[in-house]
């Protein structure tokens, strides 16, 4: 009320706790327009530039590839393809050093460019996208290899598919660019505002969202003006779709937000613009919001309206250790060294090279790494810009860190417990709500590398969780094996007994024969049903035919008492834990089947079956944590089920911190461990496949 009286022209904005004002240093690189980076002689395209499953190469060494041609296809739902950024010949497919905090190598397609820059045949433009099915548009976005370009590199098609149980009302576009030095989004918005607005329209259509809020920090007046004008023009457009487009344009509001690091963090930006908080461990879709970076919006427009895959991005080359800081339009895969050279090379006073910004970026030891889809900035810092903070001193509990923490944590307590390696305590203090923004470390008077401690604690926690899961898995497999052996043994004995019985009395021949035939038929039927149930389980669905043990326990089938009762015992015990399994068991046709099986001498509650049933229930539980399958997208459901099957083990749902699509725990873990300085002690096996940190939800403003 008061606010609107005082500021009639400004939107109501909200605050997040903490944050720091930093010298923004943007003037270094945002004075001139962006420049097309020269085409390098060699492009090094990492096969995995996204969070999720690595993609599979489609080309082999010696192949000629054209610009925009797919080099690798996605594997699984959460995955993305990569494309040839220019035409040339595939020189190698081999591990190369990638921009990763730990300096790891990962498989890359190396292309010797031919300078022709010839385009491959691209998929057709879809100018009338508003008539198209969102699923088709998502597929286009997926096939164009678009991932979050603000730093999170999560496949955009997945983020644009929150599922029917999460209706989206607001699309938030992140143009905050809150990290000091970086200006690539600034320049992108100045130069390609119209395309960004087109991308927004596409995404609004896909999501069925009512409105779009574009948040831009007020230190970028040119970008704000450009974006406002583009949104305005849209509403003035003529043509057949004028009405609808005008409607859409109304929905797009460009909002100027105060400059305060880290307002470009996904959760922080959403709070500023809407006043809503993304639940802890949750994703924005849970509160009806999807957040995308401006670069992603632009890439979506390219993909849908021009058929172009994501092969180029804006990159800021800056810092006082480069001669000519500026922004470039860079082909993915261009070696950072070439880019730095294009900027006049580094001066002698280079302290460190950083990919990303000074707050959340990571140091690279060599510039022989390629630009990836998520690399927004190459930062060459002088010792004056990045002075060594010196040896950390003890924490004096001054609480400055807590004052600036945007997640409203108590960093000093986290530090205390992380240092003591008390993993339970750090989680009590909400370690996993930390977005690693670095605010605490920057203000800490004792110069403690706090973020490093948190990464370490996260890595350790993940490792512990994985171990726990592995142990449970092993225990479970062992139990299953025991049970199977037992059942085989029992069956053997039962057969023996039956044979004996058949041999002994020989009266009433016809009757006996008929009984035997009947029994055989019934056995076959039972087996068939069991087989069906099994396939159902494999698909991740609860298997009604599977849950025999429960009724068997409550109401012993006739044949059950016969074989040694002690043997049948394990079955009920195992069937107990999953409540999901008990229900179909009680309701399902199992009881009847139990009786069918009885004449056979086989106990109805075969331990193995019980075990499968329990696993089905667990998978169900696991699925509750993963987004629900979407009916209109069959492949997704299958993929997801497969993912759940492959990756989900019983311990998973208990994990306090891995829920939500944004943070595949294993990748994130590998990630973090790669980043931790203790990495040498515990080099992650899978880390090389992933170049992003568990900051998926934070983004890199």
């Amino acid at each position, binding site marked *: 009320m008061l606010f609107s009286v005082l500021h009639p022209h400004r939107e109501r904005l909200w605050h997040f706790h903490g944050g720091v004002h930093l010298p923004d240093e943007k003037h270094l690189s945002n004075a001139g327009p962006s420049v097309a980076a020269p085409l390098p002689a060699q492009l090094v395209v990492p096969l995995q530039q996204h969070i999720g499953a690595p993609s599979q190469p489609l080309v082999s060494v010696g192949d000629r590839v054209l610009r925009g041609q797919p080099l690798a296809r996605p594997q699984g739902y959460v995955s993305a393809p990569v494309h040839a950024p220019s035409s040339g010949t595939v020189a190698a497919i081999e591990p190369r050093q990638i921009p990763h905090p730990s300096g790891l190598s990962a498989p890359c397609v190396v292309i010797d460019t031919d300078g022709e820059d010839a385009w491959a045949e691209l998929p057709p433009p879809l100018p009338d996208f508003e008539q198209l099915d969102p699923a088709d548009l998502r597929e286009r976005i997926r096939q164009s290899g678009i991932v979050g370009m603000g730093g999170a590199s999560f496949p955009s098609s997945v983020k644009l598919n929150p599922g029917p149980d999460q209706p989206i009302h607001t699309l938030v576009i992140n143009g905050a660019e809150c990290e000091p030095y970086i200006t690539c989004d600034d320049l992108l918005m100045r130069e390609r505002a119209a395309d960004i607005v087109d991308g927004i329209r596409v995404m609004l259509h896909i999501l069925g969202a009512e409105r779009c809020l574009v948040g831009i920090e007020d230190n970028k007046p040119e970008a704000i003006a450009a974006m406002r004008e583009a949104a305005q023009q849209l509403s003035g457009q003529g043509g057949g779709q004028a009405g609808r487009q005008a409607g859409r344009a109304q929905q797009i509001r460009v909002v100027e937000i105060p400059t305060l690091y880290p307002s470009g963090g996904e959760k922080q930006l959403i709070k500023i613009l809407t006043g809503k908080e993304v639940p802890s461990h949750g994703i924005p879709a849970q509160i009806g919001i999807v957040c995308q970076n401006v670069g992603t919006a632009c890439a979506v427009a390219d993909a849908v309206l021009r058929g172009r895959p994501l092969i180029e991005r804006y990159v800021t080359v800056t810092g006082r250790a480069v001669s000519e800081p500026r922004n470039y339009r860079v082909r993915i895969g261009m070696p950072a060294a070439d880019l730095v050279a294009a900027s006049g090379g580094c001066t002698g006073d280079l302290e460190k090279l950083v990919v990303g910004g000074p707050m959340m970026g990571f140091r690279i030891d060599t510039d022989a790494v390629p630009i990836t889809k998520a690399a927004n900035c190459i930062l060459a810092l002088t010792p004056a810009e990045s002075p060594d903070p010196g040896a950390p001193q003890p924490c004096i509990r001054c609480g400055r860190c807590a004052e600036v923490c945007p997640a409203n944590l108590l960093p000093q307590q986290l530090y205390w417990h992380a240092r003591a390696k008390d993993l339970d305590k750090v989680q009590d203090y909400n370690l996993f*709500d930390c977005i690693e923004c670095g605010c605490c470390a920057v203000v800490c008077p004792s110069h403690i590398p706090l973020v490093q401690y948190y990464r370490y604690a996260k890595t350790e926690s993940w490792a512990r969780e994985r171990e726990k899961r592995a142990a449970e898995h092993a225990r479970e497999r062992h139990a299953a094996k025991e049970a199977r052996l037992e059942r085989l043994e029992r069956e053997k004995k039962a057969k023996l007994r039956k044979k004996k019985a058949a041999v002994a009395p020989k009266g009433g021949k016809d009757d006996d024969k008929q009984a035997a035939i009947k029994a055989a038929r019934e056995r076959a039927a039972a087996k068939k049903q069991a087989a069906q149930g099994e396939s159902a389980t494999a698909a991740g669905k609860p298997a009604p035919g599977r849950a025999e043990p429960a009724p068997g326990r409550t109401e012993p089938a006739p044949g059950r008492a016969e074989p040694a009762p002690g043997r049948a015992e394990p079955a009920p015990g195992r069937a107990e834990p999953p409540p999901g399994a008990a229900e179909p068991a009680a309701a399902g046709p199992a009881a009847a089947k139990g009786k069918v099986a009885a004449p056979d001498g086989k106990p109805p509650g075969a331990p193995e079956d019980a075990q499968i049933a329990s696993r089905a229930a667990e998978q169900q539980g696991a699925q509750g944590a993963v987004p629900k399958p979407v009916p209109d997208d069959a492949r997704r459901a299958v993929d997801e089920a497969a993912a759940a099957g492959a990756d989900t083990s019983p311990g998973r749902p208990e994990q306090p911190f891995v829920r939500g699509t944004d943070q595949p725990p294993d990748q994130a873990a590998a990630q973090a461990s790669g980043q931790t300085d203790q990495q040498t002690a515990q080099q992650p096996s899978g880390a090389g496949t992933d170049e992003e940190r568990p900051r998926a939800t934070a983004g890199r403003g």
Partner: protein
Amino acid sequence: MQARTGFVSSPHAARVNSVDWVMLQVCLALVPGTLALVWFFGWGVLIQMALAVVFAVAAEAAVLKLRGRPVLPAIRDYSAVVTALLFALTIPPTLPWWLTLLGILFAIVIVKQLYGGIGYNPFNPAMAGYVFLLISYPVATTTWLPPAVPELLQAQDLTTLSFLDSVRLIFTGVLPAEHTWDAVSAATPLDEMRTKLDQGMTIDEIRASSPLWGDFGGRGWEWVANWFLLGGLYMLWRKVITWHIPVAFLGGLLITAGAFWLLDPQTHPFPAFHLFSGAAILGAFFIATDPVSAATTKRGQLIYGFAIGAMVFVIRTWGGYPDAVAFSVLLLNIAAPMIDHYTQPRVFGQKRSAKAG
């Protein structure tokens, strides 16, 4: 091309703060109050400060050496200096040197270093050192000088000490021949108030009985408090401290004192008297805000500060000692970890009721 190898982890930006900067700001903020103290109570104040600083730094260096820790970085953070200064500001300016030494040794060696050095001490070292002296040597520690206010000195036939007199008194314990103890010492306003109230006098009678009383507290004393307040505001401005603890401290003192004053204004002094007497202002801005031993959550700091303020009133009114800042701070130091535990902030994205741990 290879970059130099330096520190690795993000953030890569320059740090905006450091412990020595913070401690130096505290020292700077102490200047106006210290000058006022010197003005009213003579050179003894400065001599004690110099002694305390030398003792503290030497003690810290010696202990660190014994513990096999690097000495220089710890000395350079100035935390021992701040402890020494705060200690020196709370003791009487004529305290014999060896008592100062004893208090500092207790503060630095036992309270600070034996608990692990800076950051680990659960108690405020300066206050612990002071309380140690107060309990062991109650008379010496409570013998204060009269403030150099001419009317007061004339009315009660008191004198002040010269620089040399002060030096001699501190180092030899000998008063110059022309002075008597009665002539150079005087009860603090808090003492006076307490004694007279115990004698059954009303506030009006007490205030009329002596030229000691100023606008709020005692003459001279209240000006010292004003200048410390100025230093406190400076620290707030430089963001060395936040408002939470001082405001809650003074609020707690004012509210409890005010409540009793409202009940019976003749047996309880006006609340502002409490504020401007004794170490209340110094305590609120400089002592209770010692980060190491205070509560660290914002809500916790409010509780912590308020409780100290209330406790100061309670001990001043009913306790065995006329001033109570040191006791109150130490008592709440004990409670700080528990306060922190129950006042964790609501984490971003968590429900209002959710509480960790």
